[in-house]
């Protein structure tokens, strides 16, 4: 360390900088001790301050992130009731076998999967298209970017309540528009696919603009030479998009897929508030009950915290599998490119 402050700038009275520097033993004893002390304090500071800077985050994380996560796993192996949360009785894997035997669990898992797909796929495709357009030279591009992001500022609660009205069966705006172009009314509440599409549309509405901005940022980081050489090779705009833009965006696309998948796996507020009967079962026939809602129903309505924990950990394990698959895919892609 050439920059140690105790050696870098000797006191003025000793004659200043390097060449004429007096030997160390010419320095008075007290001064030397003071310097040694400063130096020790300095080293302590250098050594421990990084930990001081990261420790508040990790302490909070341990208390409110890691501990609850592990404790959920522990609780999932017990019978715990909401009425007496500290009263835990060992149950082994019974909670897991019970939920796996429960048709509503599989129904919720299937719904989460289908709602996840019909919300994530169109959302990311549209986001990609918008990002591509926003990447051209545009008049008022900032205006469009901010407008695209307005839904992101809207809360789940407000958005869901509005969409309930828009998707009303008898007087909703969307059925009115469908009527106007000659279609019959659709029962967005009770029809399985229609209700899932309606719930997905809330998600799509809120997150498309956000993802578009992320794609746009990644597009702007692609070096222009790649496009120039592609143009020299005779590639038209579409081929440039396929052969230059998309490959360069692979890591970003994977990132948004993972983030959206995690978001979709924990859908809760949208299906909860979309239910006209104000229940927790995701519609009269559980037609849009997600795993998040099923977890809530088991834990807070039926008061089986142990079973709810097992649902939570099952979701966690599914996400780990998704994470591993994502990691393998990105390794493959990197190796092949």
């Amino acid at each position: 360390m050439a920059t140690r402050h105790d050696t870098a700038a000797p006191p003025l009275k000793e004659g200043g900088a390097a060449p004429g520097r007096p030997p160390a033993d010419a320095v008075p004893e007290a001064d030397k001790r003071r310097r040694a002390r400063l130096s020790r304090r300095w080293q302590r500071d250098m050594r421990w301050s990084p930990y001081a800077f990261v420790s508040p985050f990790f302490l909070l994380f341990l208390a409110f992130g890691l501990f609850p996560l592990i404790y959920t796993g522990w609780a999932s192996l017990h019978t715990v009731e909401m009425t007496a949360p500290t009263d835990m009785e060992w149950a082994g894997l019974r909670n897991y076998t019970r939920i796996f035997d429960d048709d509503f669990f599989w129904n919720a898992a299937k719904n989460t999967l289908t709602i996840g797909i019909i919300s994530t796929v169109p959302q990311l495709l549209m986001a990609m298209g918008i990002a591509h357009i926003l990447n051209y030279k545009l008049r008022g591009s900032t205006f469009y970017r901010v407008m695209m992001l307005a839904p992101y500022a809207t809360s789940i609660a407000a958005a869901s309540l509005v969409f309930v009205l828009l998707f009303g069966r008898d007087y909703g705006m969307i059925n009115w528009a469908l009527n106007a172009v000659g279609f019959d009314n659709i029962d967005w509440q009770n029809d399985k696919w229609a209700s899932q599409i309606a719930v997905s549309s809330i998600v799509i509405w809120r997150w498309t603009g956000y993802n578009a901005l992320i794609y746009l940022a990644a597009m702007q980081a692609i070096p222009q030479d790649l496009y120039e050489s592609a143009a020299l090779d005779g590639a038209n705009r579409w081929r440039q998009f396929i052969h230059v833009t998309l490959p360069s965006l692979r890591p970003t696309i994977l990132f948004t897929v993972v983030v959206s998948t995690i978001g979709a796996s924990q859908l809760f507020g949208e299906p909860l508030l979309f239910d006209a009967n104000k229940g927790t079962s995701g519609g009269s026939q559980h037609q849009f009950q997600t795993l998040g809602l099923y977890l809530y129903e088991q834990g807070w309505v039926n008061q089986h915290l142990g079973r709810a924990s097992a649902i939570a950990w099952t979701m966690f394990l599914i996400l780990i599998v998704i994470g591993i698959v994502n990691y393998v895919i990105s390794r493959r892609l990197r190796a092949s490119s």
Partner: protein
Amino acid sequence: MTTTLTPVEPTDQKTQRVRRPKSARAGGQMHAGPIAYVILALFTIGSLFPLVWTAIAASRDTQRLAQTPPPFWFGSNLFDNLEIAWNDANLGEAFINTTFVAGVSAVTIVFLSTIAGFAFAKLRFKGRGAMMLIVIGTMMVPPQLSVIPLYMMVAELGWTDQLKAVIFPSLVSAFGVFFMRQYLIQALPDEIIEAARVDGASSWRVVWHVVFPAARPAMAVLGMLMFVQTWNDFLWPFLVLTQTGSPTVQVAVAGLGRGFTPDQSLIMAGALLGTLPLLIVFAIFGKQIVGGIMQGAVKG
């Protein structure tokens, strides 16, 4: 110490110079055609329509909403409905509560994320790689997984229905640490830290006089993002603030929709009130927020 502040300016220019040449942006040299503008206009309408219609529905009465065609323009009941919704949902208290919760969370997250992000970006220490991996891993863990033990903890501590039950779990933001790290890697050159060290500055002084000034733009953006996120948070406040007492805006608004005889125009008035403050923040700081999201998206 003030001398260490000045070099911050040229840094900004430097990072900008690297990013600047507009012609080097993909497609950036080409003007968009009319079709592009039409598509953008459609998406803009699509993104604003539900918001505008919330206001239209809030300005009508429920009978009018239960007719076809649905109303396309404002009626005269807006202020009456807003007032009733405000009183029914106890929104005044909810606003104060939510502002407090979101404010405390945002400020704490920004502070903790900046110092931790600085350590990860610029300091060498044992276990740095492993710790960073944990931070990134945390970003992947959905909050729902922790909800049950958190609920038990809160119940055990006797915090149920109190705002601190909402605040404490919301202080952990791995995203914030990651975001600040990415920013500081490029925005804070090592030479400035070295220079401050030569001047004899301790680590805390470096943070106070060098890191905070350099990180100010990113801190502002992160603060706004976290404020929006906490303001809109639904699941956790909904679970711990179930009883009467001190709801957040989102819980209060959702409560309007879950009454036994819901009045649609009142619900819409509540939804409008719950969203309005954030839309105003967005109208003022939209550009910065957009810039922040885009900055956080690119890997450093």
